[in-house]
């Protein structure tokens, strides 16, 4: 009898604790303090990131259009209809959406390659000891600290087919015979890649530069003794040593490019050419000019899943393996 009473009491006590943040009660004082400090940030994250994600996912299963724009919660539940509609490549919208996804991948991978090559080159140059490298470092950061809309608008002016300075330069030095259309037609995606990369490479540069600074000088000396040439030192010491920071850079640039709205929106003007309609721009145009929020949300969720999948695959096969092993 006494033991059952005790058990009961303990159970009640457990229940009370268990009901009221079971996980919290197991934490040490220090951990609790840490969570208290994190709480405001997490709350902001919830409001700014998680709630819209949940809300967006929710309405992607609902028929929210102009009729229900004002009262989305009353919109009918349509199951996977929105998804089937936007994913069917035989329909015009579906075809356009898939095309925009393809352009997104080109945009992301292209920007990644260009920013990485530019960023690494700049970082390697900065890592040399030469007079004025601090000035050079500041100058190289400019594209990144300059207001991005201004930068993009200037690029847009420079890319004009007739009046743009880029065609003028290319023509005058004889690289091209005819002015190129940078802002219309199939070239658009590459114009986008170049411009976006220009605004992003300084970030890559600074991160890789920090990575370069962290490589012990002795490794280069060891490689010198081992008979490595300049290129071999880069290939076998610098590049592998940059792998942890590169892993982060690659992931960030890829994801940030996939969801970058400003560059295509500002650079390509009011009527973006088809080739420049990357996913996020297409979704915006589709959803907001047509009040097609349900379908737009479905497209967004698909883009989100694609980006997340790419990130996870990348993380699993590259990041995980080398990052954890080599980072320390």
């Amino acid at each position: 009898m006494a033991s059952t009473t005790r058990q009961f009491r303990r159970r009640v006590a457990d229940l009370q604790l268990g009901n009221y943040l079971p996980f919290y009660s197991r934490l040490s004082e220090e951990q609790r303090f840490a969570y208290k400090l994190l709480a405001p940030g997490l709350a902001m994250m919830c409001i700014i990131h998680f709630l819209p994600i949940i809300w967006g996912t929710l309405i992607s299963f609902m028929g929210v259009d102009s009729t229900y724009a004002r009262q989305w919660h009353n919109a009918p539940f349509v199951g996977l209809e929105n998804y089937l509609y936007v994913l069917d490549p035989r329909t015009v919208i579906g075809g356009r959406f898939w095309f925009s996804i393809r352009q997104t991948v080109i945009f992301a991978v292209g920007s990644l390659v260009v920013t990485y090559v530019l960023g690494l080159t700049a970082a390697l140059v900065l890592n040399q000891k030469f007079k004025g490298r601090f000035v050079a470092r500041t100058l190289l950061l400019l594209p990144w600290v300059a207001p991005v809309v201004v930068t993009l608008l200037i690029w847009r002016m420079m890319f004009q087919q007739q009046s743009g300075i880029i065609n003028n330069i290319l023509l005058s030095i004889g690289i091209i015979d005819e002015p190129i259309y940078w802002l219309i037609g199939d070239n658009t995606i590459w114009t986008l890649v170049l411009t976006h990369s220009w605004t992003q490479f300084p970030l890559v540069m600074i991160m890789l530069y920090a990575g370069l600074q962290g490589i012990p000088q002795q490794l280069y000396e060891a490689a010198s003794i081992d008979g490595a040439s300049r290129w071999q030192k880069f290939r076998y010491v610098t590049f592998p040593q940059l792998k942890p920071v590169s892993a982060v850079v690659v992931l960030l640039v890829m994801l940030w490019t996939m969801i970058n709205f400003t560059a295509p929106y500002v650079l390509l003007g009011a009527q973006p050419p088809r080739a420049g309609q990357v996913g996020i721009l297409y979704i915006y145009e589709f959803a907001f000019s047509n009040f097609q929020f349900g379908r737009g949300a479905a497209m967004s969720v698909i883009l989100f899943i694609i980006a997340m999948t790419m990130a996870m695959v990348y993380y699993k096969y590259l990041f995980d393996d080398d990052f954890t092993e080599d980072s320390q």
Partner: protein
Amino acid sequence: MARVIVDDLTKEYNSPGGSILAVDELNLEIDDGEFVVFVGPSGCGKSTTLRCIAGLETVTDGTLHFGDEDVTDQKPKERNIAMVFQNYALYPHMTSRENMAFGLKMSTDLSKDVIDERVEDTAEMMGIKELLADKPKALSGGQQQRVALGRAIVRDPEVFLMDEPLSNLDAKLRAQMRTELQQLQSELDVTTVYVTHDQTEAMTMGDRIVVLNDGKLQQVGTPLECYHRPANRFVAGFLGSPPMNFLEVDVDLESGTLSNSAFSLPIPESAVDDVSGSKLTLGIRPEHVSLVDAVETHAEPDHLIETEVTVTEPMGDITNVYLDVGGESLTVTSDDRLGVRGGDTVHIHVPAAKIHLFDAESGEAIKHSDEPIDSTRIAEASGHAETA
């Protein structure tokens, strides 16, 4: 395998405050297969010299030859050398196998199979075969050290260069590796230049040691030569632990004594002809001073000095006894039969034969102790001094 000839080697660094002379007209010949240890305090130029030999630093002046070949302006990879670094400098992203194979891959045309075979043979010899698949991070300090050595050995270089390779190991492992390295070197018979600031390593490992200070060569010789026939006061004080005792003494040629406020000793016969001037520095190693138990019955009662014990340091087998001699500190290593304690008054005996004398100004040696430096030369060495 090669002789290494260092001729008037000078290295200057430019710095904002003017140039810094790191190595000053160093001359040295290292024989083929010889194990030479560079020793000296921090900043003495030993590492810089090594790096010049490696080709990691450009030479300001002078020449370097490996055998007959002038390598002064050659790049490291043209010199056929291998180097072991203080922090091992293993490539963190490569396995032990890749680390060891890297030099062969870069500097030879050997096929992958041949390289593999050589790596495995070396690993076998070094006892690290089971570590070949691991990356450096997974290895202990001692294992990393072995891989780093293996990486150097597998190259089969003409010259081994080692820059304080044992200083990151704990004391026990260091002692063990010391022996192993010596054995390895004598088996491989490769010319080796070894840099250390640790005089124990210098004394125990090298065929010859090169003592450097302030970028200048102080002495080159076998460890015992340097220990017993130090060329100057710096070398005498640098080698040996506890270090040699130095006492400033006045010379009285008429009475034939060396004296200060606390004692007076006769000028050793062997040195009488060399002594001039009025001031000298007297050097005596702690192990050569003895604590005298029975003062009355001592053979040379006149030469005993009465002192007071300040501190004792029992080491187990011996005890370091610190004494006050006329205001100067003097160390004696004793077997501690007497059981002296701080504050005790004791008598010490300073045998004239064991005294070193140095010029008080230049520090140059004038007289050495009569300790033999070579078993075959014991007889010859006893009784008179000779400058190394």
